[in-house]
């Protein structure tokens, strides 16, 4: 039976030429134009459905598929009936099928096959949400067996959707890089439609959702950053704390850095630690306890914590300092705390730290140095400024922990691709955590990073991660030499990971530095450095 007028197929070709001639109308009109084009294609193919309805159609088809799979009735009945359901009107056709399946099915297989073959013809014409059933079988026989075959490939379809999502993300990013925002916008809509078909609770769907958000933020709100960086200090600390609990990256960072600092302070009685980002001070209790128990007794410990100023007059730095002091008092470690409030690390001057020349200094930077890499042509490079004053303090050790990723490339598409891989891996590793609300808040923490990497530029983009090899070059060039982290740190890191009970984490040693990764993709790297002495007598042990 012919279900549509084959002459109208010729009409689909005329629709495509109308969209290319327009000269940069505002995005809204452009979108409407594209929608009209799609409607034209659909009409040309004989379908009476509008592109705006396609998402609903897709959802209903999903339900139809579920109903078919779960239907207790013998589906061979579908092959025998001959009632005409007008498949060209997709929406009502799907609805009728759905209602049939909840009752004894009477829909003939022919009417299921025909739209399928039609859609394989026109599937190149648009990329918005399509019904589930086609695409896999190019040679469709009008028999009932093929219906069953189609139903069994549904799980593969979901994977297929995931892969398509990734491809579309890359396409969209490429459009953004080219400046073709109209095409990027339509890509975004397509992706939103695809998202309804993919499981967004885990896996590629969830990560893709975050990247789609970040891209739309970039396209519609510009690259100024807006609310991405506007989180209050309190929120940031809370998210950071939950990220600390949910996955081992920060724990690994803290424990490894502490071990290196502990070993560097061996034999010194007056020690001073400078922390570039105090947050809740979760790193320091373990160091205080280790110093309390070290053979020879604890030294006098001074801690200087740098953090953002608190907006409402609460001195959060001081509160953390008091807590740490109380803990130090309980374990009999002489302790002194000083807080330095600065909104940016480059605003800190060495005199604020009040370093005593007789004490041994350790500088601790957990994921802070990459924020200094944004270069403003009007000022000196902030990273060089900071590294030079660190060097002037002559620290016994500088512990640097950074994300192991290359998110500071100049080209947007490269950065986007790298970020997609990196954060997909990180989200995979987060699946192992089941403790709520840690996991949800940790995801928000990561999501903010994604938004910053993808949707910000210039001084608003602070998440400028660089891989370990680049940091090595940079730090060696600034007058530091690497210190090897040693087997104790490695042992401790391995034990810590085993505790996390998730079989995917791996600690690796990389030329004296330790990296923690998920399934052999390193995600975070810890290293230790010492200032190269300028020929004076103080040679490190």
């Amino acid at each position: 039976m012919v279900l549509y007028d084959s002459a109208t197929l010729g009409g689909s070709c005329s629709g495509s030429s109308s969209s290319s001639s327009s000269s940069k109308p505002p995005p809204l009109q452009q979108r409407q134009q594209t929608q009209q084009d799609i409607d034209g294609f659909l009409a040309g193919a004989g379908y009476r459905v509008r592109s705006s309805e396609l998402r609903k159609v897709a959802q209903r088809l999903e339900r139809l598929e579920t109903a078919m799979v779960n239907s207790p009735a013998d589906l061979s009945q579908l092959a025998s009936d001959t009632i005409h359901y007008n498949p060209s009107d997709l929406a009502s056709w799907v609805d009728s099928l759905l209602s049939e399946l909840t009752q004894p099915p009477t829909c003939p297989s022919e009417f299921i096959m025909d739209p399928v073959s039609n859609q394989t013809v026109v599937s190149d014409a648009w990329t918005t949400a399509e019904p589930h059933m086609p695409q896999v079988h190019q040679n469709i026989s009008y028999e009932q067996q093929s219906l069953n075959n189609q139903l069994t490939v549904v799980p593969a379809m979901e994977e297929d959707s995931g892969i398509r999502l990734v491809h579309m993300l890359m396409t969209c990013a490429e459009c953004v890089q080219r400046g073709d925002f109209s095409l990027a916008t339509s890509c975004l809509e397509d992706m939103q439609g695809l998202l309804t078909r993919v499981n967004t609770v885990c896996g590629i769907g969830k990560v893709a959702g975050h990247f789609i958000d970040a891209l739309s933020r970039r396209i519609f709100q510009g690259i100024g950053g807006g609310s991405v960086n506007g989180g209050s200090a309190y929120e940031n600390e809370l998210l950071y704390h939950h990220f600390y609990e949910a996955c081992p990256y920060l724990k690994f960072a803290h424990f490894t850095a502490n071990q290196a600092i502990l070993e560097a302070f061996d034999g010194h009685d007056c020690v001073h630690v400078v922390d570039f980002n105090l947050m809740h001070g979760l790193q320091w209790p373990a160091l205080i306890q280790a110093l309390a128990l070290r053979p020879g007794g604890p030294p006098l410990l001074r801690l200087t914590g740098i953090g953002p100023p608190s907006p409402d007059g609460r001195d959060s730095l001081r509160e953390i300092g008091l807590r740490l002091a109380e803990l130090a008092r309980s374990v009999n470690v002489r302790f002194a705390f000083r807080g330095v409030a600065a909104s940016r690390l480059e605003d800190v001057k060495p005199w604020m730290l009040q370093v005593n020349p007789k004490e041994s200094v350790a500088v601790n930077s957990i994921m802070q140095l990459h924020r200094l890499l944004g270069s403003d042509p009007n000022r000196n490079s902030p990273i060089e400024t900071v590294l030079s004053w660190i060097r002037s303090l002559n620290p016994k050790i500088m512990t640097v922990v950074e994300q192991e990723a290359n998110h500071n490339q100049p080209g947007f598409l490269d950065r986007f691709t790298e970020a997609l891989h990196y954060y997909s891996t990180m989200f995979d590793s987060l699946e192992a955590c089941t403790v709520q609300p840690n996991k949800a808040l940790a995801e928000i923490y990561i999501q903010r990073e994604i938004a910053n990497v993808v949707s910000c530029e210039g001084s608003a983009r602070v998440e400028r991660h660089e891989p370990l090899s680049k940091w090595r070059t940079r730090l060696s060039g600034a007058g530091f030499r690497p210190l090897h982290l040693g087997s104790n740190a490695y042992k401790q890191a391995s034990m810590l990971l085993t505790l996390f009970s998730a079989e995917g984490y791996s600690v690796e040693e990389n030329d004296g530095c330790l990296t923690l990764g998920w399934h052999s993709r390193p995600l975070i790297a810890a290293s230790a450095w010492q200032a190269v002495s300028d020929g004076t007598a103080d040679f490190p042990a």
Partner: protein
Amino acid sequence: MVENHSREDHETGGENKEKRPKFFINDHVDILIEILERLDGRSLCVAASVCRLWCTIARNDSLWENLCFRHVSPPPSSVRSVVLALGGYKRLYTGCVRPVRSRLGRVRRATWAGDEVQLSLSLFCVDYYERLGGSNSNGRLVEKSSPSSLMFLCKPVNV
């Protein structure tokens, strides 16, 4: 005299055999402690619900100290004051040492035995610090439902 005495004993021997008191462990607390010292953590907790005396003894921190450092070379004396300041050996064992040992036990490496306790101590300290925040602060910094750094130890993770 001696004969009289022995005859008396002999006469009352039969009655003594019936009236001789049984051995009652609660009368011999030192033996009880020796026995409880050799129990594992779970049995010790069960023992604490037997009677009041056992409960008092089982709560004694030195028993738990024994548990923590069993199979490990004796720690320096300074450890005790630190652990007591951070919340005591029972808490250290139930919160940290036991889960750490059971999880690391799956990947048994002989070189780790002493380090397990070290790591447990560090985690214990972080946990103490977080509890400090919960009780002292004005409530904004760390709330009731705040993350505990030991949560990842308590909840079993299925891979």
